[in-house]
C-alpha cells in the first residue's frame, strides 16, 4: 500500500473545508468551538487542513512541488488526530487519515522525514525500546513496592496483561496513575500481571511520524509476546498504546490471541459488576476530554489500498467498510465518573468521535510545541466554558499537554486522570 494508491481520493477532494470543522453543521454548538482541526485553527493557509495535505500529496506525486521545509511544516504540524477523516467521511468514502499517514511514510521512506525533533525519539525506541531515552531496566520502576505478578519471566501466569506504556512507566509526574490502576485491579481481585523491564514501546509514536519499518518491527514483537504470554486480555492505561493495539496492529495480518481493553473499560466493568463500589464523595465539577486514540483513532480503519470498483455508471465503490469513529471507547470513563458520588459532570461541545485533539499527537508536541500548546489552550478554554473545576482525561500525552497549557495560560482548572478521581472515591 502506498501513497500513490490513493490518488483517486486526492482527486476527489472538493475543497469543501468540512474537514476543518466538527462534522455536520447541526452538531456545532457555538462560534467558539466549531473547529475540529487544530492545525486549521492555528494555521490559516488552507494547506494545513486535511484537504490541504491531500492537495500537497497530489502535487508532490505529480511533481508539481518538491520537498521543501514548507511541505514538511504542512505535513508534520498536525497531530494526526483523524478529525478531518471523520468530518470528511460523514459525506464521502475518502480515506483522509490514511493519505495523511501514507504521506508521512513516503517522506520518511525517501529520506525527507520525519522532522529533526522526531529522530531522537526514533533512536530511543531503537536503542532503548522506549520513547524517553531511558534505560530498559528502569521501565518497571513505577511498580516498585506493589505486589503484582511479573509475567516477563514466563514463570508467573495471569489472565490479564497490564501494559503500562513508555510514558506512564517513565514520567515521574504520571507514574501514580499506573500504580493506582494496579492497586484498583488488585483490590477488585483481577488476575493480572505486568511485563516490567521487558515491556516494549507500542510503537505508536513511530507509526505516527511515518517510520513504518520500526513500527512493524515493534508491533510484531509485541503481538508475538502477548500471544506467547497466553493472556486473554491486554489492558492498557495509555491511549496511544490502546489506539495502536486496537486499530493498527490488526492490520498487520498477524494472529492476535488476545483482546485489547482500556484500563477504564475494565474498571467500568468492575464497577458495573459490583466488584468496585465508589463510596466517597468527590465534590468536584468535571468535564471529560476524549483522547483521539481512545476514541475515533481506536477504531479499525481498514485502508482500501485504493481498491475500488465502478458501479451504476461511474460510482466508485470501495472494497472496505467505512467507519466514522463511532466505535471508540467513549462510555467507560463517563460511566466511572457517573458512579462517583456527588461528582458533577458536564460535557464539552466537542466530544466522542468529534472530540478536539489536545494537539500533542502525531509527533507534534516534540516538533511543534507551539502548535501543541495552542490546541491544548483551545481545549482548556472549552473545558472552562462548561464551568468545570477539573478537566478529566485518560491519556498521558493529553494530560501532559493540558498541564503545560494550564501552566502557560494560568487557567484556573485542574487536569486530572479519571483513575485519580475513582481512586479518591473508593
Amino acid at each position, binding site marked *: 500500500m502506498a501513497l500513490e494508491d490513493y*490518488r*483517486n*481520493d486526492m*482527486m*476527489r*477532494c*472538493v*475543497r*469543501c*473545508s*468540512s474537514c*476543518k*470543522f466538527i*462534522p*455536520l*453543521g*447541526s*452538531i*456545532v*454548538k*457555538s*462560534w467558539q468551538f*466549531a473547529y475540529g482541526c487544530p492545525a486549521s485553527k492555528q494555521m*490559516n*493557509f*488552507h*494547506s494545513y487542513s486535511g*484537504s*490541504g495535505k491531500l*492537495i*500537497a500529496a*497530489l*502535487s508532490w506525486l505529480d511533481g*508539481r*512541488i*518538491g520537498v*521543501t521545509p*514548507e*511541505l514538511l511544516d*504542512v505535513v508534520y504540524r498536525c497531530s494526526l488526530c483523524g478529525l478531518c477523516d471523520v468530518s*470528511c467521511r*460523514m*459525506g*464521502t*468514502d475518502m480515506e483522509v487519515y490514511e493519505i495523511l499517514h501514507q504521506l508521512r511514510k513516503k517522506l520518511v521512506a525517501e529520506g525527507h522525514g520525519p522532522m529533526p525533533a522526531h529522530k531522537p525519539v526514533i533512536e530511543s525506541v531503537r536503542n532503548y525500546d522506549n520513547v524517553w531515552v531511558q534505560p530498559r531496566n528502569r521501565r518497571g520502576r513505577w511498580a516498585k513496592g506493589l505486589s503484582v505478578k511479573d509475567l516477563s519471566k514466563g514463570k508467573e501466569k495471569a489472565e490479564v496483561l497490564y501494559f503500562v506504556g513508555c510514558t506512564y512507566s517513565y514520567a515521574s509526574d504520571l507514574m501514580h496513575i499506573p500504580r493506582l490502576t494496579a492497586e484498583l485491579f488488585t483490590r477488585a481481585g483481577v488476575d493480572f500481571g505486568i511485563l516490567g523491564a521487558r515491556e516494549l514501546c507500542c510503537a505508536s509514536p513511530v507509526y505516527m511520524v511515518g517510520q513504518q519499518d520500526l513500527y512493524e518491527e515493534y508491533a510484531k514483537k509485541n503481538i508475538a509476546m502477548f500471544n506467547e504470554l497466553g493472556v486473554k486480555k491486554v489492558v492498557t492505561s495509555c491511549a496511544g498504546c490502546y489506539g495502536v493495539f486496537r486499530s493498527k496492529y490488526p492490520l498487520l495480518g498477524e494472529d492476535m490471541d488476545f483482546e485489547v481493553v482500556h484500563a477504564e473499560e475494565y474498571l467500568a466493568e468492575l464497577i458495573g459488576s459490583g466488584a468496585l463500589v465508589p463510596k466517597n464523595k468527590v465534590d468536584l465539577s468535571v468535564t471529560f476530554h476524549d483522547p483521539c486514540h481512545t476514541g475515533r483513532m481506536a477504531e479499525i480503519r481498514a485502508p482500501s489500498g485504493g481498491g475500488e470498483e*465502478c*458501479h*451504476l*455508471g*461511474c*460510482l*466508485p*465503490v*470501495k472494497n472496505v*467498510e*467505512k467507519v*466514522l469513529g*463511532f466505535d471508540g471507547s467513549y462510555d467507560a470513563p463517563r460511566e466511572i465518573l457517573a458512579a462517583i458520588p456527588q461528582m458533577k459532570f458536564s460535557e464539552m461541545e466537542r466530544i*466522542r468521535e468529534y472530540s478536539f485533539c489536545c494537539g500533542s499527537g502525531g509527533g507534534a508536541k516534540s516538533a511543534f510545541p507551539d502548535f501543541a500548546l495552542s490546541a491544548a489552550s483551545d481545549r482548556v478554554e472549552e473545558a472552562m466554558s462548561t464551568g468545570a473545576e477539573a478537566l478529566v482525561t485518560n491519556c498521558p500525552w493529553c494530560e501532559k499537554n493540558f498541564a503545560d497549557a494550564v501552566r502557560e495560560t494560568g487557567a484556573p482548572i485542574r487536569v486530572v486522570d479519571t483513575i485519580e478521581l475513582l481512586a479518591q472515591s473508593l
Partner: protein
Amino acid sequence: MPLSKDVYRVFEDIVGEKNISDADVILDAYTFNWLVEFHPGCAPGKYLQNRPLAVILPGSAGEVQAIVRACNRYGVKYKPSSTAYGSHAFSLQEDVLHIDLKRMNRIIDIDAKNGFAVVEPYVPWCQLNAEAMKVGLFGTAHQAGSQASALANVTSGWGMNTMGNHGGHNAKNALGVEWVLPDGEMIRLGPPDAWFTGDGPGPSLRGVMRGHVGALGGNGVYTKCAVKLHHWPGPSTIKTAPGGVFSGYKLAEPLERARVYMVDTPDYETLADLMYALGDAEVCYAIMRVGGPEHAFAILAGAISNQTLVDWHEAGMVEAAANEWNHPLIALLYAESDREFAYQEKVFHQVVEECGASIPVAVQVSPFKDLLEEEFAIFLIGNDTHWAHHGGGFLISAGYMGTTDSVIRHMGYPAEKLKMRYVERKGILADGPDSTYHNSFEHNAYIYKELEFHYDAANAYSVEECRRLVAEERDTNREQKDGFECQDIGLCLGDARMTIQERFAELGPLYGDFHIWQERMKRAFDPNDVADRSTYGIGTAARNLKV
C-alpha cells in the same frame, strides 16, 4: 511575472511575515478546487493552469484596504476568497495575488431584536447559526454546506438555500455592508455607524455589489456584512445522539411543532400546482426537492457510503420506490405555536389532497419514516451536503431561476432525456432521469432548480462526458432560447467547447447585453483594472469590448 522582492515586502509589511507566502505547497492549495476540471485547458486535472503570485492573509478590514491600495499602486491583480469552495474562488488569470480572508472570522454582533448578524468573511453558516439559534434566529445557509461562508454567499456568491421558502434568496438577505472598493476606497452601504440597512442614501449600491449572482471576487472585497436572519421556532441547540441510519446521528429529542413531509406527484404539472398551492397557503418553512426516487436514494446513500447505494439497488429498494413515486417534493412544516402547527398540518393535507399528490407508502415505514422524523431535520438544519459528491463532484445543467411554471417546463424532456443518454454511456452516475434539485423562495414566489449529475473526478472519461453533456445541454437551450435567468450566466463553468467568457458573451445579447453594462461598471469602479476579471462579466475578453 512573479512579485518583485520589493513589492512582496510591501505586502509582507502589511500583514506580517507569517501571513503571506509564495511557497509552492501553499499556492497549490489555491489552485486546486471542485469544478476546475471544467475549465477548458485544465482537464482532466483539478489544478488551474496558473498559480497565484502569493497568498496573503489579512487580519482586518484596514489590512485588506492597505493590500488593495498596494495592488492599485503596483498594478498587482487580486482575488479575494472566504471559504473558497469551488473554482470560482480562484482566479483564472495569470499573476494574481490571492487574498484569503480566513483570519477575518468573527461574528461582530448578533442583533437579536432586529434580526441580523454582522459577520466577517470567514464565518461559516454553522458557526453563525449555532449562535443565532440561541437567540431564536436562523440564517439561510446555502446548499454548498454549512461549512461555507455566510458573507461570501450573501455578498458575492449565489444565494439559493434550503430555507428560502421562509427566509428568501440570499441576494435579498444582505443589510449593511463594509466594502473595500476595487480601487482601495472603503465604503459602508447604509448608515455609517449601524448595520440595519444597506440601502442608501439614495440609490442602493447593493446593486453594484451583486446581482442575481455575486461579483465572485471581481469587485473589491467585502469585509463585513449584516446578514438578515429569520425567526427560528426551534430549540437553542439541536441535541443529537448517535444512531441515525443515514447521517449517523439522530435527534436526541424530537423537534416540537416540526414535521418533514415527502409527498409525491404523478407528473410535473401536478408538481407545479402543488408548489403554487403550498406557496399561496404559506404553511411551509421549507419547500425543496432532491429529485426523483433514484436520485433521492443516491443522495441519502451518499451520506452512508457508495456501497450502500449499490446494496439498495441490489435489494430492489430503489426500483420499488421508482415504481411507486414519480416526482416527490419535500416540505418542512415548522410552527411557533401549537395552534399554528395544527393549522399548518390541516391546510397542508388539504392542499396535498386537492392537488392530487400523495404521501408514498415507502416513507410511512422504517427506515424512511425514521429518517423524516429523526434525522431529516439534522440534514436541513446542518445543511451538510458534501455527501452529494459521490465521486468527488457533481455538476449541474439546466439551472433556472424564475416562476414555478417557467422553471418546471425545463424539467423533464429534453434535459432529462439528454442526461439519460449519458447515463447509458456510463459517464455519470445512474440515478434516474429526474435529479432535479429545487428550492422555493418567499412562499414559492419564485424558484430555483438545477439538474444535477454526479461524476467521478478521478475518472477522466467521466469528467469528459460531463463537459460534453454541458455543451450539449447548452446547445439545446440555445435553440430553445427561452430560459429565465438561465443559471449558466451565474455558473462560472466552461464546457467542452467554450470558456465561460465565451458563453457569457453569447448570452449577453439575450439578456439585455448585461456583459456590456457590467464592463461599463467595471471600468468605472476599477480604473486600474486590478480586481480579478476572470469571474466578472465576460472576463478578460471584455478589455476589448467597445462599451
